[in-house]
């Protein structure tokens, strides 16, 4: 993912991020981080849920593992925002992009669609997760987070800034957060804040390295930037960074010892069946169901669950962390509601499309 001058919420100059010098700018960047992390989820989940039951097991698990980590990143960003005295905002329609979207960059060659699991979807996923090292001349999300880290360091050194105030809303702690891509930790000082942000960079883009060599084999040398930081950070099994996990799927092969970024994966085949997928209409809209009241009702039900989830997450991040527990229940309900929609053909569709959720936030009276 890239950020450029047109990406209005972030200040840039000459295609470089402006340093963060005030607490307001820091909070603004962290709120944007939450929005960016969340914005990847509808895209990944649409591909994930169109996979038919008991098929494409490997692809299903890979996409799911990335989704889990995006939610972990979101929660980490929220904890840093809360820990520095800010207030995450999730309960508003603008929180969700309208698909297809430029997310968050305005490059014409890169649009994020909601689409079924397909080679095209994987290409988009790789754009989203492209490591900083191969994105020549563009500002990546990795750099966006590095800029936040520098901002934290700078603000922490200012004697007139109380960067980690004693009285803040409670953060999301490990007891509220289970099985989700990493171990959530409380942010109370510069070290814990940097740990949280670094976990995001490491999982998403691979461990950052100063002398990255795309021809250097791995895993003989773990600093090739291909591995995520899960092993040293959380004592989890070694995993590939998101870009490389998706690249394995699009190549239909595993990386093996001796492979490099440039060689791509050369190992055993990954069985993938793009036909065992529900043919969801790209970027579903409520208006697609205008003539089909039953589908319209089902989509509305999904959007109600989705809106309820955003309200629950908002509450969890603003004083009531225990609400995260029922919010996970809502996530499961959303999954089943989305799958029910996706199994329904859209009547009279020229392309034999199936339905899909439109991911809209509904205010209370809708």
């Amino acid at each position, binding site marked *: 993912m890239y950020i450029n001058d047109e990406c209005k919420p972030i200040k840039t100059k000459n295609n470089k991020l402006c340093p963060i010098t005030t607490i307001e700018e820091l909070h603004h960047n962290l709120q944007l981080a939450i929005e960016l992390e969340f914005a990847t989820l509808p895209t990944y989940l649409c591909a994930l849920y169109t996979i*038919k*039951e*008991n098929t494409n097991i490997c692809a299903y698990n890979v996409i799911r593992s990335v989704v889990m980590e995006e939610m972990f990143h979101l929660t980490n960003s929220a904890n840093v925002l809360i820990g520095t005295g800010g207030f995450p905002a999730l309960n508003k329609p603008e929180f969700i992009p309208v698909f297809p979207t430029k997310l968050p960059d305005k490059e014409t060659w890169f649009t994020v669609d909601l689409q079924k699991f397909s080679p095209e979807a994987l290409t988009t996923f790789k754009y989203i997760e492209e490591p900083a090292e191969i994105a020549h001349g563009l500002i990546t999300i990795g750099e966006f987070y590095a800029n936040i880290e520098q901002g934290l360091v700078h603000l922490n050194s200012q004697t007139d800034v109380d960067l980690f105030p004693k009285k803040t809303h409670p953060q999301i702690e490990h007891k509220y957060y*289970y099985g989700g891509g990493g171990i959530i930790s409380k942010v109370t000082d510069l070290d814990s804040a940097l740990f949280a942000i670094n976990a995001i960079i490491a999982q998403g883009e691979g461990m950052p390295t100063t002398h990255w060599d795309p021809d250097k084999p791995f895993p003989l040398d773990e600093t090739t930037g291909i591995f995520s930081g899960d092993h040293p950070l959380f004592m989890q099994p070694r995993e590939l960074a998101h870009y490389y996990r998706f690249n394995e799927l699009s190549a239909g092969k595993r990386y093996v010892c001796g492979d490099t970024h440039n060689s791509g994966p050369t190992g055993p085949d990954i069985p993938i069946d793009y036909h065992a997928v529900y043919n969801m209409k790209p970027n579903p809209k409520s208006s697609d169901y205008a003539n089909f*009241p*039953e*589908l319209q*009702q*089902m989509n*509305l*039900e999904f959007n*109600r*669950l989705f809106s*309820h989830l955003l309200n629950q997450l908002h509450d969890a991040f603003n004083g009531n962390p225990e609400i995260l*527990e*029922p919010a*996970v*229940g*809502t*996530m*499961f*309900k959303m999954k*089943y509601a989305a*799958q*029910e*929609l996706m*199994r*329904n*053909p859209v009547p009279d569709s020229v392309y034999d499309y199936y339905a899909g959720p439109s991911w809209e936030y509904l205010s209370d009276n809708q």
Partner: protein
Amino acid sequence: MNRLSDFYRLGAALTDYEIVQLEGTGVGEEYYDVLTSLVSGNILDELFDDYNNLDKTCSGHVPDEQIRSSILANPKLGPVARNIIKLWYLSIWYQLPENWRQKYGIPNQTKNKYQDVQFIVSRNAYIQGLVWQATGSHPMGAKQPGYGTWSAAPGNQPHPVNFQ
């Protein structure tokens, strides 16, 4: 006439679920496959046609009493309709009654496919049975509802949706 869509229409009437909810299980075609393997085409034609005629006469709103008297009380069609209800709710095919089998059973069942004995349609169908959502529960070992959700009352939805 597309018999699979007839199967969904009749299923919706028999289960009181919407067609989109039945399609949403993703296993309707499996059920249809079971049904057409074990019940002769003539009987299914009669069943679907009878319902379609009722539907036409009643302008799309067939009263329950009509379904009871015309279909469920019919000695030939009733047991099949009851098996369709059980398929959707429980994902189990129950052996048809002895007297029905004597009269209408088809002996030439496909070898190694389905037999008219009690069985669970498939491991995925088991998960998709309507009984789980009808009781506000979930299939044991699948469709996990999230940690601690068992402390909430069944059916405790944020905004209950009322399908027409």
